[in-house]
């Protein structure tokens, strides 16, 4: 190390620590001005239309009324109703059943189609476009279409069944058919998205892994199960959580096809909330349910990030 006997004149500090700190403060403060301009608009809207309602939802869950009449504080009464309300329990049961069935069906089909697409490259674009099409249809309109298709009297499915000499099926008028029909609708709509999703995932499996598998003599199915799936595992977990979050919010199909019926057979959680709030004005339970839904989704979001993070080794 160079040991200088004394600091040469030019190397001596000219600002006192106090002066220095002051200038630095001023400098940093000036640097914040543009920040406000960039982040301000988003933060303002976010606070007003997302953060505030979220906080409000917590408050509301302890209240009754508020939509038509004034809100009155009822403490945890709503939550006891939450646990005891039959209709809500049915809604939870229906939604859970739907979610599980829908995810299992959609993911299985999507994985299969994605791997088919991945292994057979010709015409890939055509198929992708075709499968994507249902996503263009707003859920409510998809519901209308399905209503047609499954109509007892004029639906084409029953038409075909009749010509084949079979019994007509009452798709929407009976449980559990109704719920299954809704599953069908959502699977039809969501398939395109998940096929593309998994296709992208499969394509990210390193080619050399697959080649090694081929050389080792593994057949297609085995290659899929032993190589592709494990590589996709974090993605799969992430996808499941995302799918859970989306599917628990089932509403549009219910509105289009069954309006919650028959006899509450297809009432979903969100449908329940909507009905309680705007049809019956019995808001207390709805508030509690909304909050429960909110907490569940936030918890799932954090979970999803856990899975993502593990894949990326720490980048957020």
């Amino acid at each position, binding site marked *: *190390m*160079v*040991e200088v006997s004394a*600091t*040469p004149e*030019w*190397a*001596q*500090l*000219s*600002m006192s620590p106090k002066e*220095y700190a002051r*200038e*630095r403060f*001023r*400098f940093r403060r000036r640097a914040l001005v543009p920040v406000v301009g960039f982040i301000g608009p988003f933060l303002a809207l976010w606070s007003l239309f997302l953060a505030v309602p979220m906080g409000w939802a917590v408050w509301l869950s302890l209240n009754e009324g508020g939509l038509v009449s004034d809100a009155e504080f009822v403490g945890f009464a709503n939550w006891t109703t939450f646990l005891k309300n039959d209709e809500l329990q049915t809604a939870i049961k229906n939604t859970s059943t739907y979610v599980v069935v829908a995810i299992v069906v959609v993911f299985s089909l999507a994985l299969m189609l994605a791997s088919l697409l991945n292994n057979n490259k010709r015409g890939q674009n055509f198929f992708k476009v075709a499968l994507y099409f249902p996503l263009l249809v707003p859920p409510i309109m998809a519901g209308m279409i399905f209503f047609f298709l499954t109509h007892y009297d004029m639906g084409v499915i029953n038409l075909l069944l009749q010509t084949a000499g079979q019994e007509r099926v009452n798709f929407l008028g009976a449980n559990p058919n109704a719920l299954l029909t809704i599953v069908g609708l959502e699977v039809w709509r969501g398939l395109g998205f998940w096929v593309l999703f998994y296709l992208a995932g499969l394509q990210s499996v390193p080619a050399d892994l697959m080649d090694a598998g081929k050389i080792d003599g593994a057949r297609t199915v085995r290659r899929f199960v032993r190589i592709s799936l494990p590589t996709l595992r974090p993605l799969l977990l992430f996808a499941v959580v995302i799918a859970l979050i989306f599917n628990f919010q089932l509403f549009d199909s219910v509105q289009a096809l069954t309006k919650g019926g028959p006899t509450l057979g297809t009432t979903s959680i969100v449908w329940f909330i909507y009905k309680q709030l705007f049809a019956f004005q019995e808001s207390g339970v709805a508030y509690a349910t909304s909050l429960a839904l909110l907490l569940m989704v936030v918890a799932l979001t954090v979970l999803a990030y856990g899975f993502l993070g593990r894949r990326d080794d720490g980048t957020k």
Partner: protein
Amino acid sequence: MAEVIVRQLTKSFGDNTVVKSVSLKADDGEFLVLLGPSGCGKSTILRLVAGLEEPTSGEIVIDGKIVNFVSPMKRNAAFVFQNYALYPHMTVFKNIAFPLATARMAKAEMNVAVQEAARILELSHLLDRLPSQLSGGQRQRVALARAIVRKPAVFLMDEPLSNLDAQLRQQTRLELMDLHQRLGITTIYVTHDQVEAMTMGDRIAILRDGELQQVASPLETYEQPANTFVARFMGAPPMNLVPVTVEGSGLSWKASGAGGLIDLDLNAMGIAQSIISVHASETLKLGVRPEHLSLAAVGRGLSGKVRFVERTGSETFVTVQMGDENVVVRCSAHESASVGEQVGLNVRIAQAQLFRADGRNLRTN
């Protein structure tokens, strides 16, 4: 044209202090090279001067003004990046013109300035291309053009040649030196390549782990390295460092090590009597460059056994083992040494250096 001073500059990232109270001065028009291995802080110092990082403490002065809290542009220092940092969606012309456009220069004036800069760097025929259509060397020149078009007071260059292949590197090195001679702008140049530093710099500042090791002319760092780190860093093959103990009195001292005994010449080596006597009987290091050694018949002085013989065509490097130590000797192309042979060594002691246990040179400057 300006003088750049850095005073007791310190920069820490969290717990990691990358620059430790470094003080440097680059005179007006000087070409100062910051040299050191990766992680020594040289790039950080450059970025601090540029204004791309905020110092933890210390002052940065450009042209007499403290610029710690001044935005990069206002410091009037141009920066050339290692990977050029050209704007990919703009043509070469627009790239070069960008600093002027930001300063809201009139279109006509801007045009003139860009054409001038392009001419100096021989880019006039490439002005309509996009960076992706250029070769590495051409992109480098666009980066340079963008830097000079502002007529800055200071040039800051961060390893601009590292991304070029060897041949292009040499050529561009000469072009840069030519540019410096023509424009005379104060330049601070960062590199880890000591050949670049030696050939280009007016002075070299060698850094290690955030601390300044030596600031001197290239020749001085080569012939009178301040410590063992500098001694080994400069020159290839590096200086030989052999552990020795010294004994003697007055002006007559000897160094004894694995290969034998050598007489020391205190005057030629620039070592004061008082200093060397303090270190008698300590283990010191004797530093001799390969070109200051030669092979001789086995005799009274140093001797050892030949381990390796490497012929490069223009010279031969013979590695001689003395005890546990290996020294490299530079010989002529036709030197006839063979592996396993016992040889003697002649030392040009006037050129040698003695280092303390902590690495510092005993030479008093």
